């Protein structure tokens, strides 16, 4: 059984249950501060993970539950990634609490349950665990998305996410049924051993495509991206942030595991498919972001574009590419969570998240203005921020494969086109902050201490990854060594 391996998951689930229980006895006024307790709890788990959880060696994989659950370098990397993201999202939710009329305690608990789903996803080594962890993430997000019960937009987002999510679940289950029905294997390792025999079997491939489609919904890759703008716009800001970082990264870790652990032989033949998906996703996200006026919607489309960028690393089908995926996602974590923290605070008392709400932000709160600007600069991929080095690694991985397949050169140029387009809308946000015409509201924005620390942390992360990438490059390269 080896239950000790699931230490992260145990701790997070008990923390979530604890939060739910304590919430019953807490007076209404104190419920909000429960979020800080959750932050401390997750922080302690992250601290413990960094300090005490060690793999016997870099390549060694430990299994639990009959090889369903794998703990390896990749899983550990993503577990820490999700824990860090959850800390920032929880801090954001404490600020957001005043807009949530009832049940803030449950909101914290749901975030923790979603987190546990992501932790399971990062270790999934079996189609059953893949499905269960995906469902754990998705079902909690249905509730998190529609948590602002009084707001029509939030409910609408919840319903849309429910419908599309149910559809994608259907895809996944159908795909898993076909794959395991044909091959008789549920475990990734077992499947890899026999997948070669089925590389010409249409039904098997069909099933695999359906599984990838189900994961594609989570990542928001074209053509499964339709839900993103509406859901991002309507959902409460902390939920959107967690969707943008946690859910996306969970999709990517599952994608990496399925493609490179379950069916490596077939993936090698899918270069064209991945190139085309990645190229279209980049163009679609960037082009659609141009006319957006709602900041969360804009970040939704930009998130689609970034899913395309990260997919570059997957499409490269090389170790360098997969390491670049991990690097890019880490930079993206700091950048996007920083941006959403700012959005959450600035738009707290506004009805819509129109870009005009940023007018005069540099006078209302220089810290928020600086964080948002740096986040946009990093998303646009400008040195010396994390986004630049991440894009550099991805591009390098793609061009490296150009010698094998000329399609990669086309992909590199598509990426460049996307980057140039994206400059327009990212600078539009920066312009709205510093150089708007007549700001309607110039009252200073109070930034609480925890949020201050969060923002400094995000900025430090963006700068550190951009200026001193060496350490993370090595870590990422270590983590992807288990993939083939």
């Amino acid at each position, binding site marked *: 059984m080896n239950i000790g391996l699931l230490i992260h998951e145990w701790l997070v689930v008990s923390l979530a249950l604890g939060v739910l229980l304590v919430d019953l006895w807490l007076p209404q006024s104190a419920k909000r501060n429960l979020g800080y307790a959750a932050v401390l709890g997750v922080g302690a788990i992250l601290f413990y993970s960094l300090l005490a959880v060690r793999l016997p060696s870099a390549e060694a994989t430990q299994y639990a539950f009959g090889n369903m659950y794998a703990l390896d370098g990749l899983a550990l990397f993503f577990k820490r990634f999700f824990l860090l993201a959850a800390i920032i999202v929880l801090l954001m939710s404490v600020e957001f609490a005043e807009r949530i009329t009832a049940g803030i305690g449950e909101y914290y608990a749901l975030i923790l349950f979603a987190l546990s789903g992501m932790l399971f996803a990062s270790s999934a080594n079996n189609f059953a665990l893949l499905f269960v962890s995906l469902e754990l993430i998705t079902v909690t997000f249905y509730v998190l998305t529609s948590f602002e019960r009084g707001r029509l937009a939030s409910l609408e987002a919840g319903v849309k996410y429910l419908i599309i999510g149910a559809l994608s679940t259907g895809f996944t289950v159908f795909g898993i049924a076909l794959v395991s029905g044909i091959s008789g294997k549920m475990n990734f390792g077992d499947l890899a051993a026999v997948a070669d025999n089925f590389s010409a079997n249409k039904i098997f491939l069909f099933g695999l495509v359906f599984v990838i489609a189900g994961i594609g919904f989570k990542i928001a890759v074209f053509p499964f991206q339709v839900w993103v703008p509406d859901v991002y716009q309507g959902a409460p800001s902390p939920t959107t942030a967690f969707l943008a970082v946690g859910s996306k990264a969970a999709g990517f870790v599952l994608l990496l595991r399925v493609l490179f652990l379950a069916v490596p032989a077939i993936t090698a033949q899918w270069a064209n498919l991945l190139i085309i998906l990645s190229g279209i996703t980049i163009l679609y996200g960037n082009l659609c972001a141009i006319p957006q006026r709602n900041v969360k919607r804009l970040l939704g489309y930009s998130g689609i574009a970034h899913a395309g960028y990260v997919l570059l690393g997957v499409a490269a089908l090389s170790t360098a590419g997969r390491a670049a995926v991990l690097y890019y996602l880490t930079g993206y974590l700091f950048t996007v969570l920083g941006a959403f923290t700012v959005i959450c605070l600035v738009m707290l008392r506004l009805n819509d998240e129109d870009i005009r709400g940023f007018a005069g932000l540099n006078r209302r709160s220089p810290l928020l203005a600086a964080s948002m600007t740096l986040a946009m600069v990093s998303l646009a991929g400008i040195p010396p921020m994390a986004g630049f080095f991440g894009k550099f690694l991805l591009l390098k991985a793609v061009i490296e494969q150009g010698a094998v397949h000329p399609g990669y050169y086309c992909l590199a*140029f598509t990426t460049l086109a996307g980057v140039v387009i994206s*400059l327009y809308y990212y600078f539009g946000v*920066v312009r709205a902050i510093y150089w708007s015409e007549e700001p309607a509201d110039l009252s200073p924005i109070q930034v609480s201490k925890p949020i201050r620390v969060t923002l400094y942390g995000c900025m430090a992360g963006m700068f550190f990854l951009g200026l001193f990438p060496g350490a993370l490059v090595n870590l990422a390269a270590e983590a992807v060594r288990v993939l083939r």
Partner: protein
Amino acid sequence: MSILTLIICCPLLAALLLAFVPRSFRVAMRAVAVLATLVSALLAVIMFLLFNGADVSATGYRFEQQIAWVSALGISYHVGVDGINVGLVLMGAIVAFAAACVAWEIKEREKEFYILLLVMAGGILGAFASLDLFFFYFFHELALVPTFIMIGVWGRGERKNYATFQITIYLSIGALLALVGLIALYLQAGANTFDIPALTRHIFDEQHALSPGAQHFIFPLLLFGFGILVSLWPFHTWAPLGYGSAPTATAMLHAGVLKKFGLYGLIRLALPLLPGEAQSWMPLLAWLCLGNLVYCGWVAMRQKDFNRLVGYSSVAHMGFVFLGIASLTLIGITGAVLVMIAHGFLAALMFGLSGYLFQQTGTLQMADLGGLLRRLPFIGAALMLGAFAGCGLPGFANFAGEITVLFGAWTVFPHVTILACWGALIIGAVYALRAVRSMLHGPLPEKWAGVADAPHLWRKAPFILLLACLMIFGCFPGLLVEKIRPSADQIVKMVHVGQPSSPGGVLVTQASRDR
């Protein structure tokens, strides 16, 4: 720590410092910016004087410093100068100081302006000093992005927004094309290093030349990527409008210094590391450079706005550098580097003066101006000297460079050279002198009676400095040539390696032996 690191860090640290200075300390901000660029310029002068071409280190670079950065990818912070970039670093540092001096015209959001200006200056100097492909690009991008923001925010004219988008899109495309070329170069070389000296060693001393197929793919990327950045005809349309809309200091730094990055990249990387393709593309480049010299010069003649005229003339002057590069001869490339340095001072001078005029009169329409020499004896005289330098009068550094380029190109492209002489000497003289006549001479319209000359030495200093540099290097071009020549010789040899039978190669080696 190398003196180069100090030169680069001075403006960057000052930018960081300014971020913490309260907005109301206006004088302090100006002082910090001017002081930081001054220190950087003085250090650059010291470095230039200490640089002794005859005593270069084993790798051919001096004042080297190398710090490993991402060792897994072979990226390191590596700076150093040889004959090619020592003059460029000096020019960049001096122009940055002059630009900081003329930035007094900025009256709003000074804090952000000075921070961006200092980042730009640090980025430019870093790009020229870098001996690592990654940092070479990194620093350039660091300098390029502030340019866009400065034009968008502090720019002038009705078409400011259009100009901002045009320059952003053009230059981003150029830079990204070059980035793809650089990454491909790194990957194809297969040495797992971004270090330029190490790459050079790998390719030449160890005989790992890039395959013809790879060169065939990479060279156009670098040529056109860098070409867009340098306003190579027909990719020049961003330049006149962009410079016309930019605030003075930005136009000075970009037209004077940052634009030379692409040329430097061609000379330092594209020619020596991809010699086979370089040879086959050069005839085309020679003809394209006529587009700069003749066509853009012609367009400059028709301009009614002085700033646009200066913009077109700076595009036109790039033609000389391209011609020198295209010749692939020692004399041509030496001349190209000389023109790069001379034009840096000249473009900064002209944009600085036009900025002063605009600040005084509010217009640069040449038809509206006239007789200003009477009201502006100093500025007018400086403008005239600048115009003379621009049309290639002996005694200014431009003359030395241009004549060298023409000598170098004559042996390889005689037809192009003849046309280029016409473009440069006749057309250049026509538009420059016509501008001088219509703005400085003739009757003084009533409305300009209140125009004031630069009041004190402090305002005059940047122009005096730039003119002095033009004249010093014009009267004593040997100061630069003796430094450039050994390094240029190295590059020419690398271009012609592997093709000893080509006529150009024989000619060049003979020429270099003769000297």
